[in-house]
């Protein structure tokens, strides 16, 4: 499991250099318990900077303090946002034009930066986004071992796995779990599973987070990654060139991918994929999945759901709907807050709240 310090360091090294100067200063001065819990940094032109921490929103002050209310928040200009986007593109729009036209850029470390503004359209196709009005930096997390409790349910024998689909609503950790399963399947488990060649189609660069060809996330020793390409073409290239035992991809669901997925299945290659949804039955009728379900593409389903505020449930099911295993876990130490009369917020880890007042460099605002 990744420590909070590692997560804080990833934010400091991977994300902070791209932020506008004033936000950089404020985020650098954030308290560690807040820093490690940041899921998203939302920057909007003419609006205060917002941090999403464990499902709660806080507004950032110039001094590095946070409040639940937007007043006194750090407000950014359009120029600051545009400069930030230029930095994200490494001063090279031409190198990121495809990503920008899709509305996001993946930076070193696998963090996804979403962009919206006014699209420039040519022949019915978006070729650029100008006047960028909002930027959303989504912090990627690598949690080694998060799939250990359920991965054995995916092994057919010591040399084969069941084709598996991970299903959950957005933001529940599909990609994190997929990454961990890829690593285990690729490395193998001593005396239990031998390890297989895994080909990963990393369309958005979030699974492997390749930087100059080297995956920044550990995907195991038998894994080949093709990144920045659409799933259909990526699968075809892997099929032709890398002879994988397993092909893995994130966010399946485009009807254009169906024929290639069937081709992969017919070649005897196993699939490890994710999809947005709540359960297998919901997906069964959806365009892009119907044909795959009818062809029996998936033999195992992992459903991720949140039982309550901070307990995740991973449920493994077979094609007939039988539950094969359940793993419940608390991924992160969630935060709680108390508010002062002037809107300042005091943040501390939720799990510690009953026994003691958290004393570790807490975010007490105005230097108190």
């Amino acid at each position, binding site marked *: 499991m990744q420590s909070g310090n590692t997560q804080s360091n990833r934010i400091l090294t991977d994300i902070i250099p791209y932020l506008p*100067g004033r936000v950089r200063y404020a985020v650098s001065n954030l308290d560690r318990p807040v820093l490690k819990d940041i899921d998203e940094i939302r920057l909007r032109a003419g609006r205060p900077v917002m941090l999403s921490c464990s499902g709660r929103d806080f507004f950032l002050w110039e001094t590095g303090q946070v409040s639940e209310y937007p007043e006194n928040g750090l407000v950014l200009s359009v120029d600051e946002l545009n400069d930030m986007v*230029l*930095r994200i*593109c*490494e*001063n*090279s*729009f*031409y*190198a990121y*034009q495809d990503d920008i036209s899709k509305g996001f850029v993946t930076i070193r470390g696998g963090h996804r930066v979403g962009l919206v503004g006014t699209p420039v359209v040519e022949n019915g196709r978006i*070729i*650029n986004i100008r006047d960028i009005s909002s930027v959303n930096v989504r912090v990627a997390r690598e949690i080694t071992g998060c799939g250990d409790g359920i991965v054995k349910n995916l092994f057919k024998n010591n040399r084969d796995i069941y084709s598996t689909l991970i299903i959950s609503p957005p933001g529940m950790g599909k990609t994190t779990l997929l990454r961990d399963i890829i690593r285990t399947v690729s490395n193998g488990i001593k005396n239990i599973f031998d390890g297989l060649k895994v080909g990963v189609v990393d369309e958005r660069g979030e699974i492997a987070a390749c930087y*100059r060809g080297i995956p920044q996330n550990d995907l195991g020793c038998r894994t080949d990654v093709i990144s920045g390409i659409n799933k259909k073409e990526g699968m075809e290239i892997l099929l032709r060139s890398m002879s994988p035992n397993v092909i893995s991809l994130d966010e399946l669901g485009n009807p254009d991918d169906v024929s290639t997925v069937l081709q992969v299945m017919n070649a005897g290659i196993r699939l490890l994929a994710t999809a947005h949804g709540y359960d297998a039955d919901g997906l069964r009728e959806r365009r892009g999945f119907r044909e795959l379900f009818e062809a029996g593409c998936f033999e195992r389903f992992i459903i991720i759901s949140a039982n309550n505020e901070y307990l995740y449930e991973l449920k493994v099911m077979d094609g007939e709907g039988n539950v094969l295993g359940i793993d419940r876990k608390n991924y992160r130490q969630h935060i709680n807050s108390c508010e002062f009369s002037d809107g300042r917020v005091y943040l501390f880890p939720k799990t510690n709240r009953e026994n003691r007042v958290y004393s570790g460099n807490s975010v007490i605002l105005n230097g108190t």
Partner: protein
Amino acid sequence: MELENEILYMGRPLGYALLQYSQNRNTPVSEFSGRVYELSKTEDGGIDAAWQKGIDEFRNHWPVEQEDWILLSQVGEVLGKTDRANQSSFIKMMREKFSVQEKKAEEDRARKEKLYKNLGILGGLAIVLVLI
């Protein structure tokens, strides 16, 4: 032009393209691109600011005209700021401009060479005349 390949064919970010170019060549231009890359790592204004700073540093070392410096400065202002198609046409346009400058410099050199040759002959004649 190798830098053009790095940008248009390989699609590499500008900083990395400059680094690659500087490592694969040993010319004054590759020295310049390597220096711009180094400066871009510390400059807050990115490659644009680093490029201008590089020009300031190299101004005293290269025997080129003011017009050429202006052209080089324009390259830094536009490089990386547009999409691939626009970068391609910009690079093509700048290459033509530099070719014109090169031709002008060549003509200038030939003219001066001729002038010095004539001066030499005239000087020789003067010495001969004095001796007579």
